[in-house]
């Protein structure tokens, strides 16, 4: 089936099996490797990306549903590599990743959380994101999201 979608602002036409998970379309067909596979069952969040601005777990989202829609992956979170999204800036500042494999999913979830709640408390963060990190970067993720909120708000004010 031919799908037309916009991936990170780039109009793209791809021919794939309609039921193929969007994750594999993004990784194997569009060759954007930042979105990861962890569980395949919408349980870990490693495959998180945005479809028309909504945070979804792409391992469990059939590619055909994305037809005509706007996809944003971790590669499209920042404008470019010199102007990082506040979440990515905070991630570097706090030195969050260990193996790093879960982190694009967490950063996508964090950026969405801040869109919806610009001033989250630690508890809002703890209850708002259910992704899995096996290396145990949780304390730093919470710290980094609090910092990202500050960076984002300061940026707006400035």
């Amino acid at each position, binding site marked *: 089936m031919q799908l037309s979608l916009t991936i990170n602002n780039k109009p793209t036409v791809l021919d794939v099996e309609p039921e193929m998970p969007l994750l594999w379309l993004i990784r194997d067909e569009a060759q954007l490797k930042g979105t990861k*596979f962890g569980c395949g069952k919408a349980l870990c969040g490693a495959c998180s990306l945005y479809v028309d601005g909504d945070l979804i777990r792409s391992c469990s989202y059939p590619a055909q549903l994305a037809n005509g829609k706007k996809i944003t992956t971790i590669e499209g979170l920042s404008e470019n590599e010199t102007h990082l999204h506040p979440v990515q800036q905070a991630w570097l500042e706090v030195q969050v990743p260990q*193996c*790093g494999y879960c982190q694009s999913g967490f*950063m996508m979830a964090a950026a969405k959380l801040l869109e919806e709640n610009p001033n989250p408390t630690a508890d809002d963060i703890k209850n708002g994101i259910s992704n*899995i*990190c096996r*290396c145990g970067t*949780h*304390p730093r993720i919470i710290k980094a999201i609090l910092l990202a909120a500050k960076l984002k708000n300061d940026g707006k004010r400035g």
Partner: protein
Amino acid sequence: MENADKKPKKGFSRRKFLAISGSGVAGTLALLYFGRGAIRRKISDVTSEMDIPADVSNFDHKLWFEVNADNTITLKSPKAEMGQGIFTGFAMLAAEELDMAVEKIKVVHANSLNGLLSNTAASNSTSSFYVTIREVAATLRETLKLQASKLWNIPVASISTKDGMLTAGDKQLSYADLAKQITKWETTETPALRPSSQFKYVGKQQKRIDLPDKVLAKPIYGIDTTLPNMVYGAVLYSPYVKGTLKSADTSGAKNSTGVLKIVEETNWIGVVATSRYAAQTAVEKIKAEWDYNPNVSTKDLEKLITVGNGKEVNIQNDGDTDSVPDEVLTGEFRTPIGFHGNLEPSIVVADYKDNKITLYASFQNPAYLQTSVAEALDLKTEDVAIVPTYMGGGFGRKAFKSNAVEAAKLSKAVGKPVHLLATRQQEFQNGYVRPNTHHVLKGKVGKDGKILAFEHHLATGPMIFNSVPAIAETILGADFILAGHGARCAYHVPNVKTTIWHNNLPFETSIWRGVGMFANTFAIESFMDELAHKAGVNPLKLRIDHCDDTPQLVRRKKLLEIIGEKSGWHLPKSEGVGRGLAVCDDRKTVSAAVVEVKIVDGAIKIVKVIQAIDPGKIINPDGIRQQVEGATMMAISASLYEQGTVENGQFVQTNFHNYQVVRLSDTPEIEVILHEGSEVPSGVGEPPLSPIAPAIANAIFDLTGKRLRSLPLQLVLQNASNQ
């Protein structure tokens, strides 16, 4: 203090390097032919102190470095980066001798064609290469100086190095400009290393050099490997433990869209297709029947792994534990099967061409990959090239049993590179697990608070036997090296006995972060708490009082004093809070934890964890903090939630919905205290994991008076309150 700067005595050549992983264990096994009983005890003494040799000789700078045109230096790391921050540690160590900033040193994975490879395990990445990396860096520096001296026709001694520049009087040249002019490299002897007192980077906060790529989500992991003409594999394995393939109907799979090839082997069936989805869809159409034992269940496994059952091997016997007349206290503990849950599943890209193969792998043990694939495909080992990648976690799961043989056979069958990624269910059901354990502890404590006798009887499945020749099992009797790691009583007690009861489980069991230390510390440090309460002595004091003046116990005592003070151990607690303590000695690192718990809605809630660690020489303080925080979270997960079970011949757990792990909502306040108690760096990845479970159990006892003796703690508490 140990001498960290000693010169190497023996070296190894490039070829030997690949094979070095596990050579410590193999050497140990050779010794074991000489006897049993007392000898086993001796071996156990030796292995509990075992060092893995890491010296280097036959220096060939091209195996380690590339001097780049932009005057940066690339260091080819023999160890894989699995999240532990080793690339940063190596860059810092190299910078000390190369006279250039850490930022100017790029670290990449070596591969078997261009450099040296080593096993990444046992928390030894830093400690085993602490001397080596500085030696090769120093040798490169001296080599560059020698070349400059020839070019300028002046003595080497008149040349100095700084910030990547060679200078002699008014002559100056960058490393890169010099390297460009060298046609024949002449290597110098390894010079004496700079003493740690002159370190510029080691010990100071350093941002991790791998994090920009990770935050930008660059394609650095095994799963991200892409080759021209690459196709995708999927494999059907037995969903049952030790199941064997009886019959299979692959006709549906053959006709499935995109299928290029079906490969039927004795115990698995592989499909190669044009897309991953097509391969997976085809595998799901295979109708297979399996022979298996439907009677394997957790209940029977617990019976099997019980003290008094199986082969008994005594590994520690000091004094006579029976000679002490006081009342005996007995405690019985259990830990369950554990899964690794590394977030990146097993992944290999195999590229077979002209009787040679290249394996791109996210794996801890390159030598294992090379030999297993060479054997399975009947290739010479030197025709199996290994290209390691960044790992999305390992925790011991990526040390043995990979899907490389399957990937290799599939690639050979289609003559194209094949990307083979395990599913999460396969990662649970077709890998290997941490064996369940049973512990019986007996102790006698005098009125004066002195422990007179201490016995630990451990029943466990093995962790070591998939990494050593089959004969090892007969010789060793029990796995006192890995599963028995941490089983010995480390405290100074006059009468001590440690015994292991060995049985094989009906599925593969192997290493898991911390190996035996995790289960053994849970049992021993919980029991220390019981002894303290029995004697009416403060648990901190009881531990300190049983540290004598041997070097590791001196470090343990010091760390206990530090954590006692910093955690406010002797200060009153807030209402509704329980406080517990535990300590362990692992990979020459001492690690202690104080945990504070509350009961919230009938469930255990960890509110605060104070971790104190003495990892010897500290390379990157924030890197160590990261590891301690990570180990703390993984240990909370294993203590409160994780439990593998088997029913009807099958692992019940198939994904994270039935194998619960910690989430952000489980995060307590974590404080990390670093104490540098030795001049030599020791392991950091595993040690801080093990004190957490007993510290939580001890805190629960402190709060509720209930002694929880089985992991996971939460389930047991809920059961207890239901009764």
